[in-house]
């Protein structure tokens, strides 16, 4: 079997009615498990012959959980936001050719239907699904399905030729690392390949520590074989016989799928000794990280695999020269590896046709926060932010105004709304102070305070830095404490200078990239939203009503009916009053938890920016403590 190339695919088409249920952690969290159970029950009670297949997530998180029905002679139809109790209704309608409650058709749209085809939808047609194309379509736990859609063809090609040719192809494709810094992949591989010795390692980085990014998880859960294929190609190219996939323990499903994929690949002869008869031996191990953001740093990740504290070490020497157990090691983001696998299968020409002059191909972005359609989307590099946020993600929810977008996680920065024409490529984003990072995008609207966002990121880096180098450890803490002061209304103008000075030191003197970029969230918010900082410092106000110390709860006497529901619900008994009259909030007791606001049936309780006198309930302009 191995000699004639790829194993044959057994296509199971005994049943002509198929239901696909996405089983990824995002959809499971949204209730896919319950939907699956319900489908099984309904199918049984209706006496249908249905093949229910679990698939991955296609990134349209706003319709989670969705299901896809396809029956011979019927169009393939996607239903969104499915709950267990409407499953039966959906199936009945589908069989009656009534598609009115469907979200979209994947294929075979009937001419008379008002439901759009998926390809016509803004959210879909503006994407270029180069590596994520099979996510949500194939069963991630079935290697046969991956092979059926052309999987492991790239590997086969690579095994048949010299590693130099693979590097040459990557060079032509000009793939840049998708982990954040955008270092050309072929250069990294070439350095490692040139190193003497025959013990080398490859590591797939699926740590994904950026809060707000989940494309690695999505790929690993929906199309794990693509990552493995990329990893095996990497191993073959540099001459390594062992590889690791570094997955965070907080993402157990991703780890499980990758382990299953490795097992299947081993059984089919894609891993292990003498891969596909080429004589090349390679095996991988899925390493479950115990979780630490700093593991995203290459040298820290190596330390973690060695079972030590994940402290980065000074580079050079780079891991490509001296890495895991002192041997040459390459570490690639799983997204980069998925790109490698796709490029090898599809050819560099197609890849290079996408993207911009300097950065080719596509990039996945995870859009969350204040947009209508949250999810993971893949677009060409160089796509303007506006197109992604408005055309694909649908712009802000009703009544909200997008203020900025936070790009690249704790190392990235905020880009204000008036710069949304900026194309998203490595260099343009860098010039704006942000980074592409892993591609997390958190959209912020007028209910988000930019100072608070900066404070949040610094609290993250303060806790997540390794604590080894003095500048990283103390600098993050200094900036965090300063921002905390400002959000508490205790800041001074001098603090702005202090922030700038500390970030300057950190950018120049930190040991690792985490520290050097930790001040980016501050610098960009200072650059684009200085007015908010000034409002916090000078006027002691937080217009977004986020910073608790600068917000007061008051009861509107006109709306209040004196029902005392608020007083009853207050966990700290800070509200007192008599039935029938407007109660009073005791500001010294109030911790601003918002319980009263949620509980008031008349909407009489509001948050107001600014501080008030102890005695007063209502805000008086200019009256400060």
């Amino acid at each position, binding site marked *: 079997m191995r000699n004639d190339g790829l194993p044959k695919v057994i296509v199971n088409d005994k049943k002509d009615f198929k239901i696909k249920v996405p089983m990824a952690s995002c959809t499971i969290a949204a209730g896919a498990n319950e939907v699956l159970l319900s489908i099984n029950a309904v199918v049984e009670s209706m006496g249908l012959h249905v093949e229910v297949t679990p698939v991955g997530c296609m990134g349209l998180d706003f319709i989670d959980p969705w299901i896809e029905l396809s029956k011979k002679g019927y169009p393939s139809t996607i239903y969104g936001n499915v709950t267990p109790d409407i499953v039966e209704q959906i199936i009945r309608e589908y069989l009656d050719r009534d598609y009115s409650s469907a979200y979209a058709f994947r294929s075979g749209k009937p001419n008379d239907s008002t439901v759009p085809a998926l390809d016509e939808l803004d959210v879909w047609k503006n994407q270029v699904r180069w590596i994520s194309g099979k996510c949500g379509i194939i069963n991630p736990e079935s290697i046969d399905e991956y092979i059926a859609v052309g999987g492991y063809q790239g590997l086969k090609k690579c095994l048949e030729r010299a590693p130099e040719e693979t590097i040459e192809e990557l060079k032509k494709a000009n793939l840049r690392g998708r982990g954040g810094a955008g270092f050309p992949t072929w250069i990294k591989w070439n350095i490692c390949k040139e190193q003497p010795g025959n013990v080398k390692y490859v590591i797939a980085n699926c740590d994904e520590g950026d809060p707000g990014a989940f494309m690695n998880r999505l790929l690993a859960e929906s199309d794990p074989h693509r990552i493995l294929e990329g990893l095996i190609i990497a191993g073959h190219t540099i001459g390594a016989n062992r590889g690791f996939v570094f997955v965070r323990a907080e993402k157990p499903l991703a780890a499980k799928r990758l382990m299953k994929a490795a097992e299947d690949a081993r059984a089919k002869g894609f891993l292990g000794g003498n891969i596909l008869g080429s004589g090349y031996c390679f095996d991988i191990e899925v390493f479950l990280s115990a979780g*630490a953001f*700093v593991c995203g740093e290459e040298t820290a990740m190596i330390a973690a695999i060695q079972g030590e*504290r994940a*402290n980065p*070490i*000074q580079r050079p020497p780079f891991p490509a020269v001296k890495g895991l157990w002192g041997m040459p090691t390459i570490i690639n983001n799983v997204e980069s590896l998925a790109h490698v696998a796709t490029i090898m299968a599809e050819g560099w020409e197609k890849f290079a046709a996408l993207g911009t002059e300097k950065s080719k191909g596509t990039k996945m972005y995870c859009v969350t926060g204040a947009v209508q359609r949250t999810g993971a989307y893949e677009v060409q590099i160089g796509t303007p932010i506006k197109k992604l946020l408005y055309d694909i993600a649908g712009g802000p929810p009703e009544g909200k105004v997008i203020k900025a977008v936070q790009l690249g996680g704790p190392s990235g920065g905020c880009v204000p709304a008036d710069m949304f024409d900026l194309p998203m490529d490595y260099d343009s984003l860098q010039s704006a102070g942000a980074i592409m990072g892993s591609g997390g995008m958190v959209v912020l609207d007028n209910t988000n305070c930019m100072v608070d966002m900066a404070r949040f990121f610094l609290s993250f*880096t*303060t*806790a*997540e*830095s*390794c*604590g*080894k*180098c*003095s*500048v990283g*450890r*103390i*600098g*993050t*803490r*200094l900036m*965090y*404490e300063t921002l905390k002061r400002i959000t508490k209304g205790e800041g001074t103008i001098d603090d702005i200078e*202090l922030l700038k*000075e*500390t970030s300057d*030191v950190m950018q*120049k*003197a*930190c*040991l690792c990239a985490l520290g050097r970029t930790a001040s980016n969230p501050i610098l960009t918010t200072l650059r684009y939203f200085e007015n908010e900082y000034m409002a916090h410092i000078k006027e002691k106000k937080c217009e977004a009503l986020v910073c608790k110390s600068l917000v007061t709860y008051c009861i509107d006497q006109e709306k209040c009916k004196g029902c005392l529901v608020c007083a009853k619900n207050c966990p700290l008994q800070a509200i007192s009053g008599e039935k029938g009259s407007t109660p009073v909030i005791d500001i010294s007791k109030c911790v601003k938890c918002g319980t009263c606001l949620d509980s008031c049936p008349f909407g009489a309780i509001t948050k107001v920016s600014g501080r008030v006198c102890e005695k007063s309930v209502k805000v008086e302009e200019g009256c400060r403590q």
Partner: protein
Amino acid sequence: MIISVRSLSYDELKRNLSRDDKIVLWSCDTCVKHCGIAGMDKMTALEDMLKEDGYTVIKKELISESCQVNLAKKHKAAQEDLFNEATAIITLTCELGYQCVRNVFPKIKVIGTAKTFGSGNFSNKKGPILTSPLPNTGLELNPEGYSLKNLVETFDLQQGFFDFDKVPNPEKITITVDGKPLNVKKDANLLDELLANRMKIPHLCYDSSLGAIGACRMCLVKIEGKRGLVPSCCTQIEEGMVVTTEDEEIEKLRKSILQMIVAECGEEIQQSRDIRFWLRRYKITENRFKLSKQEEAVDDSDEVLIRDPNRCILCGRCVSACAKLSGQKVINFANRGSNTVTITGLNDNFANTDCAHCLACAHYCPTNAITPKAISKKISGYPFWTLITYPKKMTRSTRAG
């Protein structure tokens, strides 16, 4: 301290070696260092000489106290593969250390280099002196002591370290430092060479005996062709390097970093010699940075060592010293980020750990966060024991002497 004198000439040493020997140099970091015939610098000199003569040195092993068998065993266990490969160990230790090494490595050829005469003192005026000679010397107990020179002459031994026989001549290359050419050893550590050329570079975490850590970020320099600033302690010298050790930007950074360290540790840290020196040199009187500080309990449970976490700047020297020099790994970092601390054992008191009291941590601590204990009690007057911690380092003062 134990007094030893070198008993072997370089030629005799070479006669004991064969060309294909894989040599490990093994040196003690205590008494015999003060006798001037051991220590990291001496090992480096010997390594250079041996390499020049075509021998293979595979490792330099510094041990904090060579007369403790358990430490030697730990060193062996930590690098099993290396010692399996080794065929000869040259011990720059006293005869006790030689005994220990023979004990732990029964299958490897061990070459001793010193003769031990007995116990003695370290005198401020005369340096190491022998006061209580062993019987085979034929000498008598003498509080005034016999100087090393005396012993060398009487017993026809070798004066000083090997470099008196033959000055090693390692390959030198020229680099440019602050616009001037400088002759330095090829492939050496940049900070080592800068310091050897009497340049003042602040450094808190680096010591050539411990190797580079790269944590304090004080020794940053600019190197042409390299992005940003690089810590000189982690940089290997390359041909044609152009280094800037001091300019406005570097000084500003160093000042800021120093202030940050002081802000984190509190004002008390300014009493430490190194910190005080650089604060004065950079004329820092006021600290721009302020951080809240929580006092932590001083651990004085141990009989020999006191650990004051409030003075710890987390440079990692003690962690390195305990791991590399003693091999015990009693001290380590715990937690992450701004909560990082140094701990002993499973966050136990010092007294409840396996500490072998080799004092390596205390010798290398730049801020006296770990110090040897000295207690004195006035029976009349003060009813309490008072603890005195040493303001200076034993190693430094003795080195000066």
